[in-house]
């Protein structure tokens, strides 16, 4: 395996949890709900996925529970921000801080006999080479020699893209985040859709966490997500709310560490800090473009009503 192949192979593996979380956040933000609780939902997904998988010896059950937990946490966010019209930034931050603490606590309690989960080795997803395709030179190693959750990602991303841009419910989803008043006038239930897509976003975040604790770094250690939820939030902007572009971004964000470690190991000396900075720098540039250039904003379709609570009684 040459250097480029191995870097791309790792980028796909490392980027998978980011793709799930980012796609989930894109769905929620397209519906107008900014959920900064991504990190908290991911880490709760990670700890409950591993605890369930360990207790039942079934990694798939772990994934299921992680998605339910992620969805439930998002439901809290939905109640606070949609029904009670709380500030979305504050509610999301609270979800992250609370989730991180709760995950650490559960990590001490959910092990065998109420003991800690740390240091246990449980079931995990391992590489399942796809017959035939995995032996294609270069591409086979990069794409088709991975675990089941990575394959699930290959299916989910195009599905979400198709749903968002090619279906009527997808149009409603985008409309709710663009102009809830007008959508409401069309007879679409804004509140119900916002609830639905916030919860679905949380389920994706839980799935991302599950990929970390069941496949990428199997097992549980505190702070397992290591800020990946925040990276995913930056990725949403980087991807300009488009799931297809999110994949490219996740590869870049996920691969950049792998790249700089590989370069170090090969004895090349590019400043690691400089390389680590690149994705964030690009995010800032995209963010500036989105905010500053109206035409660009319209073109990429940044949701106009993002972060604004919808109030039927209010005039606009």
């Amino acid at each position, binding site marked *: *395996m040459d250097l480029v192949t*191995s870097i791309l192979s*790792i980028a796909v593996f*490392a980027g998978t949890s980011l793709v799930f979380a980012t796609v989930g956040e894109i769905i929620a933000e397209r519906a107008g709900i900014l959920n900064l609780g991504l990190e908290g939902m991911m880490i709760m997904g990670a700890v409950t996925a591993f605890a369930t998988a360990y207790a039942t010896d079934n990694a798939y059950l772990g994934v299921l529970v992680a998605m339910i937990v992620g969805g439930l946490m998002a439901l809290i966010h939905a109640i606070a921000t949609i029904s009670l019209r709380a500030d979305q930034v504050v509610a999301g931050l609270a979800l992250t801080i609370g989730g991180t603490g709760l995950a*650490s606590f559960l*990590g*001490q309690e959910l092990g065998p006999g109420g003991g*800690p989960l*740390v*240091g246990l080795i449980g079931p995990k997803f391992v590489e399942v080479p796809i017959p035939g395709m995995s032996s294609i030179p270069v591409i086979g190693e990069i794409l088709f020699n991975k675990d089941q959750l990575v394959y699930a990602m290959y299916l989910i991303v195009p599905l979400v893209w198709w749903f968002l841009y090619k279906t009527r419910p997808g149009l409603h989803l985008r409309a709710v985040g663009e102009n809830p008043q007008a959508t409401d006038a069309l007879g679409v239930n804004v509140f119900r859709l916002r609830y639905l897509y916030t919860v679905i976003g949380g389920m994706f975040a839980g799935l991302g966490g599950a990929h*970390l604790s069941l496949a*990428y*770094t*199997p*097992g549980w*250690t*505190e*702070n*397992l997500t*290591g800020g*990946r939820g925040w990276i995913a939030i930056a990725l949403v902007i980087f991807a300009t709310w488009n799931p297809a572009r999110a994949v490219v971004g996740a590869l870049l964000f996920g691969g950049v*560490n*792998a790249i700089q*470690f*590989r370069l*170090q*190991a*090969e*004895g090349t*000396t590019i400043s*690691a*800090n400089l390389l*680590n900075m690149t994705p964030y720098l690009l995010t800032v540039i995209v963010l500036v473009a989105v905010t500053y250039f109206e035409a660009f904003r319209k073109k990429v379709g940044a949701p106009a009503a993002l972060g604004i609570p919808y109030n039927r009684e209010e005039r606009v």
Partner: protein
Amino acid sequence: MTSKRWWIALVVLAMIAAACGGTTSGEGGDTDTTGAEPAATTEATEAPTESTPETTGGETDAGGDFKAAFVYVAPIGDLGWTWAHDQGRIALEEELGIETAFIENVPEGPDAERVIRDFAQKGYNVVFTTSFGYMDPTINVASEFPDTQFVHISGFKTAANASNVFGAMEEARYLSGMVAGAATESNVLGFVAAFPIPEVIRGINAFTLGARSVNPDATVKVVWTNTWFGPPQEKEAAEALLAAGADVIAQHQDTTEPQKAAADAGKFSIGYDSDMRSFVGDSVLTSPVWDWAPKYISIVEELQAGTYQGDESWYGSMADGVVDIAELSPLVDAETKELVEMKRQEIIDGSFQPFCGPVLGANGAEIVAEGKCLTLGELLSMDYFVEGVEGEAPNEAPTGLGS
């Protein structure tokens, strides 16, 4: 409406005050337990008297009213550095019966200063601050609380009531290097390292010297992760080293991820901080380990007896028991085992030190000449790599050190 809010505010305030009074005995209770409160704080430093039953509650029954606090940089569940310190804390509770408290995940910087000050205000007799970056905060707070003893781990500054404690991990690193050097087939050893600071560089150099003492062809590749505690990064760095041909992975990090990555690739590894073989399996050939319990117990005993030298600068060795290597894996061959045990005895009886000449630098410079050894000061400021290390160090190796 307004009067109602006042009542709520009052109730909340009362609850906060009650909570502070219940869990701690230092601050917070000033208003409702006037008079008794100052007695509690001064009492701690003088002779124990059986007064103030209300303020101290059921908290300080066991070992008189001596209380020790610990500030940790990572969670105790890291199985590494912080876990090892927490074993020392548990030993204090179990063997001396004193009350202890700890706060995990305290970032190095202003937050650390607040946490340390908080412990001092609450009347803890000794505060252990267990990360390099807590050094300046510790010294700052120490000047405000002359009656409290502070013990900082791994730094170099002291004050009248702030001591500095560390250990010669390089001795154990050297031995683990011998194990790795004997085990490698590719003659490439990988080292996942946190930050290019002297503590880490010293460990890499000692590891390399040990490896090359049994296998002169061995080289050590270093990858910096720029984090003490980052499970994904540590794994990725280890994989990068494995891809670059390393077949034994050593580390200076806070989790077992590099060990797991090596095990997954069917390669060996050397752990750190705690016996990582017990968590990952026999592919972990050994781990240089810390044992803080004896030193922590002796500090507290001396403090209770009033004989502790408050500004001591202690650099413990393998002979003191603060550093050692964990039991070797059954996968280590008998010849290596014997060799390592022999060297270990030489280190303990003082006849061998890792950094005695001749030691060459990565750039070929003669750092220490034959017959000389690095001084403690030179060890503590090491910022260059020795011959056999491939990686980026802050400085080029100098010449003519040692005495």
